């Protein structure tokens, strides 16, 4: 109907030059050149033809193109054989495939790991302590993220829209 919410995200075409901050609640796919920040609550895919100069924040980030900037993949970051990253990576799961280039620092967060441990193991003193100490930081981080997303405007709501064939 005018509009059945299809959750279509942002796609930057191969012949496009974009300057500024792209933020989307849905997936972002970049084929072209971006000079600025890329933020998504879901997946970000940097294809082989893409060149990104700026920080990238997302849940699952896949890099097959060139990135000059810091990457923050809350769940997973993967650099494919054609990928090139110059900058630091902050993620909880990192895959660098053979042939990929990565120049920078990497910081692995243990959030997911800790959660997995607490789920699978019976109540553990250490993990409890960790849990107790983290919520405040977590809340702050989440608040910061939501604020950033709101500020970046043009954040997407689930809307009814035409399908553009």
């Amino acid at each position, binding site marked *: 109907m005018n*509009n059945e919410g299809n959750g279509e995200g942002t796609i930057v075409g*191969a012949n496009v030059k974009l300057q500024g901050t*792209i933020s989307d609640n849905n997936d972002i796919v970049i084929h072209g050149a971006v000079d600025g920040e890329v933020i998504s609550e879901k997946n970000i895919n940097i294809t082989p033809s893409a060149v990104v100069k700026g920080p990238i924040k997302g849940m699952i980030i896949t890099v097959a193109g060139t990135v000059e900037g810091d990457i923050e993949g809350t769940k997973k970051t993967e650099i494919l054989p054609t990928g090139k990253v110059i900058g630091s990576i902050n993620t909880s799961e990192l895959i660098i495939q053979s042939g990929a280039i990565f120049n920078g620092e990497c910081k692995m967060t243990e959030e997911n790991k800790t959660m997995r441990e607490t789920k699978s193991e019976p109540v553990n003193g250490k993990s409890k302590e960790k849990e107790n100490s983290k919520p405040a930081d977590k809340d702050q981080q989440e608040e910061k993220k939501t604020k950033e997303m709101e500020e970046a405007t*043009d954040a997407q709501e689930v809307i*009814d829209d035409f399908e553009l064939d």
Partner: protein
Amino acid sequence: MYYYIFMPPEDRKTKRLYEKIKLKIGLLGISGEMVQNTPLRTVEELTELGLTKGYNTIIAIGKDSFINKVAHFLINISLAQGKENITFGAIPIEYNESKISQMLKINNLNEAIENLRNRHLKKFDVALIEPNKFFILPIEVCKNKPFYCNLSTKTYFIKTLAKKIKITPSLRCKIMDIRSIPNLFQKATKFLFSAPRDDKYTSSFRAKSFSIESNELIPIQIDNEILAKTPIKLHTIPKLLQLIVPRDKISVRNN
């Protein structure tokens, strides 16, 4: 009571179709005042007349561009007169490539009139081209040859070569490069390839407002009718127009 505005008929076939529509409307008990756009009575005048007479439901009958034009004047006049709860309905006269029939999910005349009788209402997003052009159907920014254009939103700026730009009333924008539109050969040999073409030349994004500029005047059109020319500024106004839509169909499973 409904106020029906008919597009001027282009041929005998359309005249006969109008007779059929009038008959069906009468049979279903949803008849009202019927007026036709003529060179002496413009769409704007007819729409204003309908609202002044106190009609709350305006129905446009015609092609996509005509339906959009009625919607545009309806929004403009109702906003100027401070009238709320104005309802809009449409009976398209073409169903194959009509955007309005896609939007209303109707495939033929019977469904369109049945839809009016059921009067199921839903609010839709409307887009505004500054200063006062509204549209409720997707628009196209295109020319016979590719053009350079700049699109800027609040947070970013895009520079690209485009063949066609499609924009919905919710301001979802699709920029198509010449390489993303299949040529005749590609269309003809499409059946040979099972996987769809890797279309990396099409861009797609959504914003609440943005502007389009180009180094030449590019027409912005609906159904081949020009609404405006670049440069333009667009805004989306969520849930502005109340439209008569079909009831949700309940499918029954036979186990």
